[in-house]
């Protein structure tokens, strides 16, 4: 039996001055702040190299330098801001409407058993519908203008918000509610002081999901009927075979997603500093 497996080896090893072998490493998450940046840099370099060496057609996959150039062009000719403003406005209105409605219904379902009994089957039935499939219907109802786009985004955001909200209320520790009841706190105070802050982590996690959904839906809605917006811009560039401009639009969407994620992270850090 090797010394490392022999239970009596400890005393023998120490008398011989042999160090104890470290066996506790691994299975822990370490921070590598530069790894992601390095990976991006390598990916971009490989892409640029492949283009320059003629391994990829610049018509179908333009090099990152061309995409960057197109992005600079978008900034200088003002099209970036024009399209971004239109998309951000649609996301903001649709997301706020969907979130407000979703939170209201989610709270009702989280608190009242009857609302939950009615709401769960309805949410289960409507949630899986791809919301973009409803855009033609919303166009019939609300016209080709902005309201149909708001409705698509709002509808897409509504159901995940409902689910996130009532699930978050279910996660509020019941012992805290019993404590409040035992001290005679009124129902409204329990809601305000315990249920709402207790559900906040789950609700904010839901925001992260619905922000991504809003971004996906705004692009899809803009591709169907919009003059301005990143979705319309990307579609137009594709139609004109301007793949560098198309990818610059996609890059803007990616950066927009990152920016929204960062804002939500800051919000979580601010509101959930007690965790």
């Amino acid at each position, binding site marked *: 039996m090797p010394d490392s497996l022999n239970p009596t080896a400890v005393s023998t090893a120490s008398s011989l001055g042999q160090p104890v072998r470290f066996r506790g490493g691994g299975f822990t998450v370490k921070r590598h702040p530069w790894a992601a940046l390095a990976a991006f840099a390598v990916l971009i370099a490989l892409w640029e190299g492949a283009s320059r060496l003629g391994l990829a057609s610049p018509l179908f996959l333009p090099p990152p330098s061309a995409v960057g150039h197109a992005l600079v062009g978008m900034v200088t000719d003002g099209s970036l801001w024009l399209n971004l403003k239109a998309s951000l406005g649609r996301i903001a209105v649709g997301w706020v409407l969907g979130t407000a409605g979703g939170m209201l219904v989610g709270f009702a379902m989280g608190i009242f058993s009857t609302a939950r009994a009615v709401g769960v089957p309805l949410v289960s039935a409507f949630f899986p519908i791809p919301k973009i499939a409803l855009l033609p219907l919303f166009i019939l109802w609300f016209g080709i203008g902005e309201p149909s786009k708001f409705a698509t985004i709002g509808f897409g955001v509504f159901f995940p918000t409902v689910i996130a909200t009532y699930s978050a209320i279910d996660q509020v520790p019941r012992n805290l509610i019993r*404590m409040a009841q035992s001290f005679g706190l009124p129902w409204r105070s329990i809601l305000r002081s315990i249920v709402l802050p207790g559900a906040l982590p789950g609700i904010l996690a839901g925001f992260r999901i619905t922000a991504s959904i809003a971004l996906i839906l705004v692009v899809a809605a803009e591709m169907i009927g919009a003059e301005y917006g990143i979705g319309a811009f990307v579609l137009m560039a594709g139609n004109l075979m301007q793949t560098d401009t198309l990818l610059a639009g996609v890059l803007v969407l990616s950066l927009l997603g990152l920016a929204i994620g960062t804002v939500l992270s800051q919000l979580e850090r601010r509101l959930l500093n007690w965790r």
Partner: protein
Amino acid sequence: MRLLVSDLTHRYDDLTVLDGIDLTLAEGEILAVIGPSGCGKSTLLGIAGGIVAPSSGSIRVEGEVPDGCLNPITFIFQDFALLPWRSVEDNVGLVLEHHPLSAAERRERIDSGLRRMGLWEFRQALPKQLSGGMRQRVGIARALAVRPAMLLLDEPLSALDAQTRELLMDDFLELWRREKTTALYVTHNLDEALRLADRVCVLSRRPGRIRELVTIEEPRERRQEPSAQAHLAEVRDRLWHLMKAEAQMADREIARA
């Protein structure tokens, strides 16, 4: 304030957890309730505190409510039940928010509870920054803020280490010496019961029935003295004898189920 429990039975669906409990808790008395797991100790406390509705029987309180009492029957919880998003002083202040108190009185109640529990320096801290013992002190300060007439303590020391338990038992003793608050104290720990209680109620395995009510004759303040140890050891043996038989039978029943 006195607590009168009469023919109390409680069922969760088909499962009877308490059966025919008759009990009187005298003014200023500390009654410890012990018994095997699942015998309905916490349910009894929940019913006494009005947060569990009994299946049958009655539970009443009698007597004067002291001046300034905002919540006559007040819980101290095993898991502390602190709001993690509120500071220590805001946790204590939570239970005063719905009472029409002046700002000065509210402040005085919070500060006095925090000072008595040695938490003044930590009033701005969040619960996550405190040790288990300090969290329970916040729970006690919160209970004191409403100036209760009766305390219901649900294994308040069971989540704490042995040293912290000792320190908090001293705090409880000091509290009772000053306030003479009636208390129903649920515990698994015979030593806590022997140190703190006037009487010990031993519940049988489920469904919980009163096996015996044991009076501890030795005055509370003398129980740490060597002369008291013989009597306490005798009571402890008797309680353990009662508990052990019930716990063994409960274990066998759980294994069979």
